[in-house]
Structure formats: structure tokens, C-alpha cells
């Protein structure tokens, strides 16, 4: 397994919101990618946006603009 690193993670209520996040981040050159929701957040399935910690401010700005589909923010070592 790869070495764990600090990541800034966004969770979503729906897959639609997750893909909207991916699209917006791509358009605005915000770093990160979609990953399975880490078990540190919740067991089960779903998608989360994983970004390097230094991208936190930009990621929060994109996610906040998306509105109600965004569930929460986390800083994790995963």
C-alpha cells in the first residue's frame, strides 16, 4: 500500500454533487480527485473529493458555491 499523507477531503450527499465538484474543480484548476469515501469518515460507499492540504481554501470555495449537495469537510491522513 502507498504511504499515507495528509489530505483535505470533501464528502457529498449524492454522486451527482460529487461529479459536479469534479467538473468545477477541473474548470477552475483546483487540485484533487474523486476517491471512495475513507472509512475514517464513514463506513460504506460513496465518493469524496481528495485534495492536497494546500488546496483547502480553493476546494472550500468551489464546494461552497455548489451548495446543498456538499456534506462536510475533513483533514485526514489517508
Amino acid at each position, binding site marked *: 500500500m502507498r504511504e499515507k499523507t495528509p489530505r483535505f477531503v470533501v464528502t457529498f*450527499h449524492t*454522486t*451527482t454533487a*460529487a461529479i459536479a465538484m469534479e467538473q468545477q474543480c477541473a474548470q477552475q484548476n483546483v487540485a484533487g480527485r474523486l476517491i471512495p469515501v475513507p472509512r475514517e469518515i464513514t463506513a460504506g460507499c460513496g465518493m469524496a473529493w481528495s485534495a492536497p492540504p494546500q488546496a483547502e481554501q480553493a476546494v472550500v470555495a468551489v464546494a461552497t458555491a455548489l451548495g446543498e449537495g456538499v456534506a462536510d469537510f475533513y483533514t485526514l491522513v489517508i
Partner: protein
Amino acid sequence: MIYFDNAATTLQKPPCVFDAVVAAMKGMGNPARGTHGTALGAARTVYEARCRIAALFGAPDAQHVVFTANATEALNIAICGAIEPNANIISTDLEHNSVLRPLFRLSKAGASISFVRAKKDGTLRYDDFEQFIFPETKAIVCTHASNLTGNVLDLTRIGKIAHKHGLLFIVDASQTAGVLPIDMQKMGIDILCFTGHKSLMGPQGTGGLCLGKHVSVRPLKVGGTGVKSFSKTQPEELPTRLEAGTLNGHGIAGLSAAVRFITDTGLATIHAHETMLMRRFYEGVRQMPDITVYGDFSAETRAAIVALNLRDYDSGAVADELAQQYGIATRSGAHCAPRMHAALGTEQQGAVRFSFSYFNTTQEVDRALVALKEISL
């Protein structure tokens, strides 16, 4: 074969639809189940389809576009999930059974249904809507266009009546989505139900509903969603709330390509061509002495449908003669529109329905006119 049964399903699709379906079947994973390449690719395709449909219909955003197997499923979700069973509901004589049967089932649970009656020419008196509004009235459910006559309802006018009285406005756009302009916000539509395989030119097995911003709908089905797996209840958030089970990703990919084709071509261009064919056919048949045409053709905007009968012949026999002797596909019988046939007085005879698409030609129309002349001899 000449295909004039486009109100049942469009047979000719833009080539991009076939390409999209084939590509999806070769490389699409499950949209919303995982984050590997093919799953994400599928989720992106479905998301893009939602965006295109939201833009086409003036829906709030992609999250308010819910995919279903067809318009019937969408209407069942809307009618059974957004209206309380003790409500009074207003509908019309123009409706298809996909509206009528969910309403009748709701009436068995306590709802009462008031029908705005159609006149002999198949049109409605709009003033009648307000006569049926009582304190317990909660919703208006109606079609955008009759699948039998092609007559179009003035949704903006009905939407204003609905919202003046605080009623939910649910629209069945099965015959118009993809060919007539629909703007949920301008028309005051709370829930728009559509099918993908008719004038939207997508594959069968696709359809959906678009919800207004503040509309709440109980799910008809619950089950796997790809999110919140340990919750015992269906997630609250749209579109997941109303999309239990794996979506028809292959079909949605085709539908998305079709919507792009329609948007690129332009609704006005598509509608103008279909209207030209319909008018040409109508002008031909209305001069034939043994033919009765149903519906109102005075309105500028109507769906590209001409329903007719030849003398007192069984409509099924005429449609069969057209198919067997001339290779012309039409639809006879009752068209799942029992109240409309009752209003027109055609319950016993049915009618032969000719319905035109963007891919039909004037030559095909002229051959159908010749065929009808010969059959009537």
C-alpha cells in the same frame, strides 16, 4: 417502410445516439458505484445528461433531474409521491393512461379527481379549471399535448391558474419534449415528466422527471443508491432519493447524445419540419370525402399528429391495410387515451393515427395520401 408512428416511439434516431449507446455498452461501468475509471466515466456521462436535460427544460440544475425507465414511471413517482391521497386533483380528458391510471389508483385511496372536459374538437375550455378548485384541491396534472389529436395545452396559462391557487402543477410532456419549447420556470411547472424515446429521439427505457426547486416527492422505490449504505432509509437528497437501483446508463448515454443533437439542430427547426409534414398531410386528407379528421388544426402550435378514420371502417383494419399493402406504419385503436376517444365519439371505431418526425419526408407523406385514396376507392 414508411414510419408514421412516431408518437409511439421514434424509429429513426440521429446516428450519434447509436454511437453513444454502443460506446457506453463497451466501456461504461456503474454510474454511482465506485471511483475506478469506468465507474467515474459512467457517472460523468450521466451527470452530463442531467445538465443537458436541465438546460433543455429550464429545470433548476442537474440535481433536480431524475432518471426513470419511461414517462409512465416518472408520472407514477410524481402523482403518488407528491400528492396526498385525500386530495382533490384536477386533470383533463386529453390524458394518456400513464396519467389516468395513477390518478384512478389514488382515487381508490381517497383522492377525488375532477376532469376538465374536452370539446368535440378535442380542445379544452381553460375557464373550467378554476371551477374545479376547492379548498381540498392540491394539484393539476395534465399533458402538454394530446397523443391522439396533437392539440397542445397552454401550459403557461394553466401554470398561472395552478400557482394563483397554490396548487402543484405536474405535466406529462411525453408528446412534446424535444420538439416544443418547455421552460419549467416560465410555465410554472413543478414537476415535468418526460420519456426519452419519442421526440427526444433517445433509446427506449429512458425517461425521467424534472423537479422544481422546492418540490418534495416521496420515493416510489427504495434500495441501493451507492451512498449512505448503512442507513435503513432512502437518502433525502435528489436525485438519489428517487433513483434506487442501477440507472440505465447505456440508454442515458444515448439520450444525452440525442438531446445534444436536438439542441444543436434547434427545437424550432425540428418543429418547423414536423409541422410542415403534418400540415401537408392534413391538407391532403381533409379534402377526401370519406375521411374524418379529429382535433383542432386552427392553432398554430400543435404536435405533429393527424388522427383520422375512413368511413366507418375499423381503424385496425385500415392500419393493417396500410401496413400490409403499402408498408406504412401507423397506430390504430384507442392509443391508451380512453377519455379523449370518448370525447371524440370514437370509442368503438378507434382512429388511425399518423405521427411525423424530423426524419420523415414530403415524399413519404405524399405516398401515404395516395395509399389512403386507393384504400377509400
